[in-house]
């Protein structure tokens, strides 16, 4: 009996000794697993007892989906605060799912903010505008939290760019977000993102911060040299034509010396045509 008890203790001790390094190695492979440890009191309060139990049973993804469906219902009934609370819980449960951050922040910054700005129950314009700004800010904060959780992914940077451009009217911030997205994007969307960053950077320089005009020109010039300069002029499509026009305009605005221009003006012919 004593021998068996000793053996049991030995087996448990051996298991405990091997467990910690084994689990540390598993956690290193899966950062999502490490983040999943955040089933805290705040989370339990947000999602209720029933879903907490499901959460503890390992059905994290399923709980996130159920809350997403609940958020869908709240959205249909225009219960914006409930919708926001559900979104907070969903993104907390599956912080690595890009579309949750993306769609949730979009609903807050676009739909909820629009509803606040046209709220028939609020007659004061100033209050409506303030509420609108608060919802946009809530969307932005959510998106920025998504970026903090997924710093290596480009998708949320692009979405932040669109939000800054369209809802906050900050083309400079949008340009910086798009440039951050370009840095992280290796897929087929890179072409489009590179141009998007250029457009916003140029807009930032022309409308908000003229000091960045040179930066915008350098950006377009480098992009043209890298991606577009190989194509013969006769094969240019709408994008090529558009970019070349933008670069020429920037060269003129910045008074770039002819010798340094990508598109120098055609020089007049040295020989004088003979009079007929």
């Amino acid at each position, binding site marked *: 009996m004593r021998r068996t008890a000793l053996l049991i203790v030995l*087996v448990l001790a051996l*298991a405990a000794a091997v467990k910690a390094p084994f*689990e540390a190695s*598993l956690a290193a492979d899966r950062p999502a697993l490490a983040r999943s440890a955040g089933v805290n009191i705040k989370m339990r309060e947000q999602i209720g007892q029933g879903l907490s139990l499901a959460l503890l049973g*390992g059905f994290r993804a399923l709980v996130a*989906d159920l809350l997403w469906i609940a958020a869908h219902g709240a*959205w249909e009934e225009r219960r914006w605060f409930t919708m926001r609370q559900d979104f907070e819980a969903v993104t907390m449960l599956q912080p*690595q799912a890009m579309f949750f951050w993306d769609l949730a922040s979009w609903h807050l910054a676009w739909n909820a903010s629009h509803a606040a700005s046209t709220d028939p129950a609020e007659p004061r314009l100033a209050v409506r505008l303030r509420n609108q700004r608060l919802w946009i800010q809530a969307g932005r904060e959510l998106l920025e939290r998504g970026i903090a959780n997924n710093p290596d*992914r480009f998708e949320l940077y692009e979405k932040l760019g669109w939000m800054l451009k369209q809802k906050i009217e900050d083309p400079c911030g949008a340009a910086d977000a798009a440039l951050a997205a370009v840095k992280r994007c290796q897929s087929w969307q890179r072409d489009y993102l590179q141009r998007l960053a250029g457009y916003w950077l140029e807009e930032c320089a022309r409308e908000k911060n003229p000091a960045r005009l040179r930066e915008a020109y350098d950006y377009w010039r480098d992009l043209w040299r890298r991606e577009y300069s190989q194509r013969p002029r006769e094969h240019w499509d709408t994008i090529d034509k558009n970019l070349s026009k933008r670069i020429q305009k920037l060269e003129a605005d910045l008074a770039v010396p002819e010798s340094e221009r990508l598109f120098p003006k055609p020089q007049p012919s040295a020989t004088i045509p003979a009079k007929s």
Partner: protein
Amino acid sequence: MNDTPQPDVVYFNLGRVWTIALNTLVEVTRQKVFYFMIVFALLMIAAANFFSIFTFGEEAQHTLQLKFIKDTGLGAIGIFGAIIAIVATAQLLPAELENHTIYTILAKPVHRSEFLLGKFAGSALLLVISVMFMGALFLSVVFLKERHLAATNHHQTIELAESALANQKDIPPAAKEQILTQARQKADQLVADIHKTAGYSGIVKALVATLVKLLLVAAITLMLSTFATSLVFTVVVSAMLYFAGHLEPVAQRFYAGSQTVAGKLMSAIITWVVPNLAAFDLADDLFAGTPLAWLKVLKIVSYGAFYLLVTLTLAHLFFRQREI
């Protein structure tokens, strides 16, 4: 000269383990609860398709729909698999004791360890068959949804371009052809994207990890039943350990930050003894955009195998002491 006959030494024999395992399998498949669970699980997996109508948001429509199906399918396999593992395994030893069949078996040249391993193997076979059934249906549902989404999206993309062109009479034929070619390319890209989102390899990996988790749950239940005197105790404690296993990462954090002795003790027990069952849930990784490599899945499987070995060794140590 000593004429007293020496007792024959009976060595451990896998053949006997296999025979007990097959008998156990027949025994557990006769339980009605097994069929109830399987039918419920299959219905839930098949119905997963209907949950996907709750998605909203144009851009990520197909991603969300497939995610809902995959989460529901994996969730159903996880929960019903766990119920089957606990309920079926918990009854094995008590049933043998109640029917007195264990006396007949152990009176023969059968080691207790062979008997125990055979019981576990029978239960494991049941779980393998169940997960294969449920997994096959789950993959079929995902496949059908993927086909449907691919066909719908492909058709819609091209139709959209064609209807836009139909309203523009003054576009030259070459430009029209170019626009249509671009629409076809976009449609093909969308189909490829949908196929990638379906992620069959990721699903198979998640199923493998789930199966290992269920085997571990069955082993824990069997270990508890080696010293438990009541079936209810075994089922309840197994279910509690199942939850505790998923709570293990939380307990680890609590252990690190706890100030009270009781809190420290409880979390220490969970941290050092209970296996981390959350490590087997790959559903989160399926959507992280970086599916786990097979080598990493193998690491998770070895973690499960290590704990299976520990649990079955403990079960053997408890069972050999038990008075029957």
